[in-house]
């Protein structure tokens, strides 16, 4: 069973400014899409839980029953706190997982010792860590350029099967590294939403595992657009319209051959249903459209037409698209239809 820890909240520099409700909502949405653990700085956890208010906290609930909108409670067992000193663990007796980069010799069973490995030559540094109960290996951005099967096997021999892996993304290969690691038997992955903080993007890893390993098929990824908006609001950074899973334009289709194929069966040109990630497909017309796409657009807009008009209409659409340097809006298309008739 693959378990996923999302570290987005540890990479938000201004996290202290977010209100409690927003952070809880973010956590609930992450649980809904299939994240198992959420990591945050201990200071953030202390603030949102607020020890003075604990008696008034609503009943804690199981994360997988979490309702993103209505329930304020969340299972403390699903949080992982990022700490700087091992003494900080004492302040949070309800938490069973802590991550620390600088607690090298602490063997507390609750503590995950994070080790940065930037080069495979550094792997020998992991040899002495078997006495630690839990280890997270972070980095290895370029491992796919090496003999990664052998390297992962070596890591397993040093750390056992239960170590966590957080591939980093300096070479744009973190998702692929995570997937290959899981294919080779790795079970504990560490990611961040949208790849914030140079991690493998949570949403890409979840979808890749869903498609390739049928992982977490029962989870609800339709809340992805809500998560995206929330993260954009919290970070002030907008995701690209082409961003895998999250981009606003990834299910727009214009090319004639694709429009025709999708009309017959969306599976021909889509890796997964747009609805499964809470979005919809949209047909736009322009330079790359074919007569079939024009026909579909006319039907969608409920405009009556004759088949012998389609070719001249297509030529006019293509010419206008090239003139303005983009696809046409529905209004522009309607205007061309009027002028062509």
């Amino acid at each position, binding site marked *: 069973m693959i378990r996923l820890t999302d570290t987005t909240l540890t990479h938000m520099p201004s996290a202290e400014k977010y209100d409690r409700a927003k952070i809880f909502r973010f956590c609930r949405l992450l649980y809904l899409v299939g994240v198992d653990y959420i990591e945050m700085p201990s200071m953030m956890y202390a603030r949102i839980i607020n020890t003075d208010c604990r008696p008034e906290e609503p009943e804690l609930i199981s994360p997988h029953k979490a309702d993103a909108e209505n329930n304020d409670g969340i299972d403390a067992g699903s949080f992982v706190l990022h700490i700087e000193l091992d003494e900080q663990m004492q302040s949070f007796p309800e938490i069973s997982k802590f991550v620390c980069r600088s607690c090298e010799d602490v063997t507390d069973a609750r503590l995950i010792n994070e080790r940065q490995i930037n080069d495979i030559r550094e792997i020998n540094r992991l040899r002495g860590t078997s006495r630690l109960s839990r280890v997270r290996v972070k980095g290895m951005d370029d491992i796919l*350029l090496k003999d990664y099967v052998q390297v992962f096997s070596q890591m397993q021999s040093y750390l056992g099967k239960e170590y966590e892996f957080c591939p980093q993304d300096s070479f744009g290969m973190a998702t692929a590294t995570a997937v290959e690691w899981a294919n080779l038997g790795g079970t504990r992955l560490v990611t961040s939403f949208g790849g914030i903080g140079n991690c493998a993007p949570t949403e890409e890893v979840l979808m890749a595992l869903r498609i390739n390993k049928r992982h977490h098929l029962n989870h609800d990824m339709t809340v992805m657009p809500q998560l995206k908006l929330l993260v954009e609001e919290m970070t002030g950074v907008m995701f690209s319209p082409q961003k895998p899973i999250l981009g606003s334009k990834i299910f727009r289709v214009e090319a004639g051959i694709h429009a025709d194929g999708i009309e017959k069966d969306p599976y021909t040109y889509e890796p997964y249903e747009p609805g499964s990630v809470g979005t919809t497909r949209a047909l736009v017309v322009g330079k790359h459209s074919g007569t079939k796409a024009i026909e579909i657009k006319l039907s969608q807009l409920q405009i009556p037409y004759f088949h012998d008009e389609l070719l001249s209409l297509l030529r006019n659409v293509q010419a206008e698209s090239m003139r303005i340097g983009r696809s046409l809006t529905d209004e522009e298309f309607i205007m061309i239809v009027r002028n062509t008739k």
Partner: protein
Amino acid sequence: MKEKRFIVDTTLRDGEQSPGLAFSVEQKVRIAMMLEDLGVYQIEAGIPALGAAEKEAIIEIMHTKKHVTVSAWNRMSVSDINHSVECRPDIIHISMPVSYVQIYTKLRKNKKWLLKMAVECVALARERGCRVTAGFEDASRADIGFLLTLTEQLVRLGVEYVRYADTVGVLYPSRAQENVRTIISSTGMPVEFHAHNDLGMASANSIMALRGGAKYVDCTLLGIGERAGNCGLGRFLLAADGLYDMGVSKKKATVVEEQLRSLLTGSIS
């Protein structure tokens, strides 16, 4: 010394198919010249069957270019190939839908028909004196046995290399490597790899295809393309540069990608 491999840039074909983009003839020629200066091996310049403006752009690119190889993309159609021949590109690329969903659902044909049409179209282009490459559309969801049968036929017809396309971007790295390796070892046919970034793995899949023996990798500037885009040149070079000599400078690629971004302001944001 790093092994030499080659970039096939498809900014002007698959990249431009990104909804919202529509290059003018002048823009296409300008981008082609930027790509030639950058040092890519091949420019996939467009789809002649799209119409007069597209053909004009490809003809102009052929007149303007110096050394770069220029190819034109075609469906498996006599009419498409005739349009391409008129543009006199260096290479005629013929795309062949090879997965069962493409053959049976989209084309509403069968494997026998596909093999027959593939042979006819390649033979036609070869009779016209053209160099031909073949594209296996949706190869990552196709039966590898069928791909091998088709490849063996294409070897006999003189096709220079085949493009293994992960059309919907669902491949993962070890499979990309394994499938490319299988085609090369079973048929001797050189392979070009074409990735899409739907799961964020285009760059890694392309690297692993090279490790499986692929000679060519398809990229687009800024990773533009259908849905989540293609394998972005700058990002790919970041990783590939550690293993292979792709003939293109990372630094120059970044500059050219920024030039394209300026050219397309509004269209890709």
